[in-house]
């Protein structure tokens, strides 16, 4: 069942692990699914010039970002025979150790689910206008750049 409606990707604050359990449980009635692939982004306590990252404060050009998320999902559905596809991204402050990105794909077969998930993650990193302010323990900050 392809869900082609634009769905809201952004949520305030970190993604709780229970949300992931709930998403998985919601798919147990879909008995044509054989494989799920999940990617989770977690904020790292990187040490930069001797200072430790406490948290990342995410902001976004929201309208453009939601449009980009939607286009990326559509493009994934057109390339991969997925049953379902869900993306959630945090806005606001996410502490080190907490989750900021949750990408979830399902398919009858593992290769499709895995490839679609990878595709989505790479596209999200490259094309969605999300910005991250790395907050250090001494209250200074720097702006994160994806590699």
């Amino acid at each position, binding site marked *: 069942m392809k869900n082609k409606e634009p769905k809201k990707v952004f949520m305030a604050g970190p993604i709780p692990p229970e949300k992931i359990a709930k998403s998985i449980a919601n798919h147990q009635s879909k008995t044509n699914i054989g494989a799920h692939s999940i990617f989770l982004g977690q904020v790292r306590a990187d040490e930069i010039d001797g200072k430790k990252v406490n948290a990342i404060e995410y902001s*976004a050009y929201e309208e453009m970002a939601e449009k980009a998320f939607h286009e990326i999902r559509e493009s994934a559905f057109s390339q991969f025979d997925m049953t379902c596809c869900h993306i959630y991204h945090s806005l606001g402050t996410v502490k080190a150790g907490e989750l900021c990105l949750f990408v979830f794909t399902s398919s009858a077969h593992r290769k499709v689910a895995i490839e679609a998930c990878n595709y989505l993650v790479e596209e*999200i990193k490259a*094309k969605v206008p*999300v910005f*991250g302010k790395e907050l250090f323990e001494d209250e200074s900050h720097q702006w994160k750049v994806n590699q």
Partner: protein
Amino acid sequence: MSITIKYFGAIAEATGVTEEKVALEEVGNSIEELRSYCLTKYGDVGDLSFQVAVNQSLTTSGSLKDGDEVAFLPPFAGG
């Protein structure tokens, strides 16, 4: 005849504003002219790398028209 300019992340930090409305005559009517306008007005932006989106699509050049929403976007950091 005006456009809205939005600034994000490190760029907004350098300009000190997140959004402004300016007359098209003031900025010129191409993206190239808008860039120079902003770099003159907010010197610090010159040190930062950024992309420009017009009406939510990345664009590198072209003309601007009344009502356009132009965004200055620093490097993406999603995920």
